[in-house]
């Protein structure tokens, strides 16, 4: 039985109710709840409805690659604060907080590994580090992954998950678009294949640069893949949005990606592609 409540909050009377804060292990689609080890065993996919939870970069690398084969590169590349950027908090503080919370020093991890015996170069983004945003360090790491792939003559597998360019680095973050595009062009010229896996979300500056330039592009089910996200489109144009606006499924229908591959099948899919390009 619920008690009658007297609302004494004056200032928040007309504010919208606070968004329901769900536990990260609760499926946002069907409400199923999992223990950490259950989620990890299912590759962070809801076994009831197939919803793909975010997957951390290191976990993904472990899943794709042969055990013990991953050797990280450019681990010491990290962001600086060229503008002394300060919004509500200093950028430098946000960076150290992200490092502490994620155990990473940037939003991308690169390195060499083998997948089912095929040597590859990997570049994997991690959304938990400042929304996977691309600043100078991410741009540099991705570019070095291209160079390393060219040098060793092995395919590049690039996993993207990013909210876009990192505003705190101002115009330099925008310049990471042409920078990574130039790196991919060097890769194309060297006839090195690039396979892109788009995870949720692949948006804005990353979609408008290296993410869109893979020779083969696959996406995870339900991933948001859009230059401008649904909220901003809605706010600026007042257009009615289709239900699957910007999702991987719509992108497949409109011809922007080659396939949607559930996480559990990605390793086999990548292996098949690697055999074809070998």
């Amino acid at each position, binding site marked *: 039985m619920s008690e009658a409540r007297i609302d004494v909050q004056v200032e928040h009377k007309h504010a919208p109710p606070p968004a329901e804060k769900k536990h990260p292990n609760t499926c946002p689609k069907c409400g199923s709840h999992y223990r950490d080890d259950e989620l990890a065993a299912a590759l962070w996919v809801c076994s009831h409805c197939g919803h793909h939870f975010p997957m951390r970069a290191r976990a993904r690398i472990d899943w794709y690659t042969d055990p013990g084969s991953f050797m990280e590169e450019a681990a010491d*590349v*990290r*962001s*600086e604060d*060229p*503008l002394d*950027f*300060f*919004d*509500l908090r200093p950028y430098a503080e946000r960076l150290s907080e992200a490092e502490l919370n994620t155990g990473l020093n940037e939003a991308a991890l690169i390195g060499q590994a083998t997948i089912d015996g095929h040597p590859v170069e990997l570049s994997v983004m991690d959304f938990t580090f400042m929304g996977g945003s691309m*600043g*100078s*360090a991410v*741009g*540099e790491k991705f*570019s070095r992954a291209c160079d390393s792939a060219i040098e060793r003559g092995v395919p590049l597998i690039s996993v993207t998950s990013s909210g876009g*360019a990192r*505003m*705190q*680095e*101002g*115009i*330099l*973050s*925008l*310049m*990471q*678009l*042409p*920078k990574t*595009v*130039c790196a*991919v*062009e*060097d890769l194309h010229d060297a006839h090195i294949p690039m396979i892109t896996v788009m995870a949720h979300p692949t*948006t*804005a*500056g990353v*979609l*408008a*640069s*290296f*993410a*869109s*330039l893979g020779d083969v592009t696959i996406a995870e089910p339900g991933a948001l*893949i*859009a*230059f*401008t996200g649904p909220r*901003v*489109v809605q706010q600026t*144009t007042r257009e009615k*949005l*289709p239900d699957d*606006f*910007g999702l991987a499924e*719509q992108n497949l229908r*409109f*011809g*922007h990606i080659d396939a949607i591959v559930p996480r559990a099948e990605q390793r086999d899919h990548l292996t098949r592609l690697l055999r074809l390009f070998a």
Partner: protein
Amino acid sequence: MTEKDQELNLRQRLSGLSRLPLLRGVRVNGESERLERQLERLQADTSDEAIWRSVELARHADRPYTMDYVERFIDDWVELHGDRGRADDGALVTGLGKLDGRTVALIGHQKGRDVKERLDRQFGMAYPEGYHKAMRVMEIAERFGFPVISLIDTPGAYPGVAAEQHGQGGAIARSQAEMARLTVPTVACIIGEGGSGGAVAIAVSDRVLMQEHAIYSVITPEGCAAILWRDAGEAKKAAAAFKPDALHCLELGVIDGIVAEPEGGAQNDHDEAARLLRTALVENLEELEDTPGEELRRRRRAKFRGMGVFA
């Protein structure tokens, strides 16, 4: 000399210096450093105000647009319409014409002057079709050896349902890739707002210039304020924090030179603004024209790949 004149004079000298190939991006010369220090001193108190003034001037309703410049310094102009796939995007104008006697391909954003034209041209915000059209014209330029001139003036690429469905992100990425492949000289100038992906899509050039009061940024000041300050009204603070003005872009090595504007801004004298811009474009083209195409491409990629500050 008033403080304003002094500042303009210094800016011009600094942009002249930084156009020398040796000096670009790096400060190897005492003269350049001294000028920069002087500039910093002059600007110390007013820099936030000056940045916001540039934001306002860059969006000034009377500021000359791409077609105003085309009328003034491109001869035998022939506009090329349509992307050969879906549509003709009015927000991005492309065509061929003569600049100082040589045929060039020109690509430029075009905002509208009156309400009807603004709507027709989506306020200079291009759809993917616009970038497809630009790529088509770049291919023509590459085949016939025409230099490519880009004039950039856009708040950003169009954020709409159809634009997304037609592949806005991919179009911007491929337009940059096309520019990274060209073996003809390319010069870009930001003549107003250089807004994010929509701007950089046609700005992967051998020389990237900015007019004195143009802005070049990763997001609009309002957008940045809405996200980081949770209040679009803090746009002034946001602009001061991410510094989209020409001088800061030059200092960060993002652009290669600053093109002076008439006193008080380009909107005050379109003819003089066009004369100054034409001179800068021709000078830069002349410096590039003797370099072999492969070398141009190599240097262009090396320039962009060197951008960024990291530890």
